[in-house]
């Protein structure tokens, strides 16, 4: 009896919490005139549900292009970032060298630097480097400034430090050089930490807004969030299209989250707390 009540309370709370997103999904199939119709009862209306909004949103927001651009942007940041951040983290964790403490101090300071502060001066740097205008240049401007992230270096360093030395020492005995040890021993051993970093980066950069808003000046370079914002701000405002677009923008991250959920350990998320 008590158990059943627990289930009921849990289910009701979850439903209430997810109500906004459920409404979004349902309303995205409703005809334009009925998106806001009927108040609360509208939630249960099945009248006239169709995929029309999706077809219209896909065309009007050029979502094919937007999804492709966002995919390239996130893949670029993830790919470069994974390599560069883990290389730096490994050096900070495993080598003794002059200036190591100083560099690690720099990483700690940069941890707190908010992207938004940097956006304006960064634009001028990117402009001076010629990374504006064309498609490839804009992509580089989206990726390069955010590939290396202080948090990721810090986080991966902590995980390299926690690795037992035996593994690596065995590899040294076998004659492996430092890069081999990094690549084939240490990196595979911190796979859960890498997964955590990847998932957090996907979430962070799929939703990037202010920086793409500044650098994606041409329609063909727009990311998904800009495509959505464009539908939302440029008349004629079609609520059904906006909702369908919002759902399509959300599906890829939900999928990534679903696939990665098993690999991301909750305790990893809190790893930055104790130090």
């Amino acid at each position, binding site marked *: 009896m008590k158990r059943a009540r627990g289930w009921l309370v*849990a289910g009701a709370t979850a439903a209430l919490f997810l109500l906004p*997103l459920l409404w979004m999904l349902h309303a995205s199939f409703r005809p334009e005139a009925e998106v806001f119709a009927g108040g609360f009862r509208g939630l249960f209306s099945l009248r006239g549900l169709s995929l029309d909004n999706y077809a219209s949103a896909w065309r009007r927001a050029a979502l094919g292009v937007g999804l492709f651009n966002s995919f390239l942007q996130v893949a670029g940041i993830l790919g470069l970032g994974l390599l560069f951040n883990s290389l*730096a983290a490994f050096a900070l964790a495993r080598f003794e060298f002059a200036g190591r403490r100083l560099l690690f101090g720099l990483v700690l300071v940069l941890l707190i630097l908010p992207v938004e502060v940097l956006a304006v001066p960064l634009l001028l740097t990117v402009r001076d480097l010629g990374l504006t205008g064309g498609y490839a240049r804009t992509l580089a401007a989206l990726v390069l400034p955010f590939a290396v992230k202080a948090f990721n270096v810090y986080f991966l360093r902590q995980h390299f430090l926690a690795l037992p030395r035996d593994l690596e020492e065995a590899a*040294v005995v076998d004659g*492996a*050089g430092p890069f081999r040890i990094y690549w084939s021993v240490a990196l595979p051993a911190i796979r859960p930490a890498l997964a955590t970093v990847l998932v957090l980066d996907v979430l962070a950069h799929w939703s990037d807004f202010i920086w793409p808003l500044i650098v994606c000046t041409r329609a063909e370079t727009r990311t998904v969030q800009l495509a959505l914002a464009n539908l939302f701000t440029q008349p004629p405002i079609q609520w059904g299209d*906006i909702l369908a677009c919002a759902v399509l923008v959300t599906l890829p991250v939900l999928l990534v989250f679903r696939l990665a959920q098993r690999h991301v350990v909750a305790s990893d998320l809190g790893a930055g*707390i104790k130090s």
Partner: protein
Amino acid sequence: MNRAAGATRATPWLFLAPALLLLGTFTLVPMLRAAAWSFTGADLLDVEGARWIGAANYSDLLTDPRFRRAFFNTALFALMVVPAQAALAFFLALWVNRPEPHWRWLRTAFFVPVVVSMPVLAVLWTMLYQPLRGDQMGLVNALVAGLGLPAQDWLQNPRLALPAIAFMSVWQGVGFQMMIFLAGLQNLSKDQLEAAQIDGAHAGQRLRHVIVPAMRPSIVFVLTATLILSFRLFVQPYLMTRGGPADATVSLIQYVYETTFLGRELGRACAGAMLFLLLVAGLTLLQRLCAREERS
């Protein structure tokens, strides 16, 4: 490993080179340039012709009513979001910290809004907050009407717009803070964990004397992280209200953004960015001090 086979003095620097190159080019250099520009009258389209004007940008900012308004709004937003989100996240974490599988589902449900992008949620909540027109209304007004309360034009009412944005922001981020608290709870000993199941007598006392003291590192972390995050407010008001009505939701970041791209006053925008950075640095220092006091 440092004296490992094949490692020379250059090896660490080879490992560090790509990261240092990108950090230097895209973080350190822009930051130093911004610091320098903040003391000039630089124009966005004519950076070279900038003249040194001392601290004039800073004094202008501090007397500009719109900047003060942006600061006030952002601080007020933080004041609304931080305690609400931290407290809610804490109790959700205590509630769902149980091993049976259906609690895992509940944890996931609370985390889902964190996964959905903020621009999507800003657009969605603009629709949820739609005012009453005939039988057309947003879901929030439908619920409010269901409770017998009068419908509101949430985002166009200067007194309600910022609280409305704060409410959706708490809903969006609470799952993440809950996960951090859950991680903290998992580090507690078994006895402490049993006490964390807050059903039964004296739950409040156990909470106050056992759980909260043991969880202090997590609490300090969540409070300061949320505080810094909430000071970065931009996307929600930019999309939901454009900073309106009557500047009631204009944020610090939006002020810097508009000063740059509408006013083209690069020098002044950089001064704004520097003040923002000082603020965040100050908040972080505060956290470090709290954490240190904790340890001693």
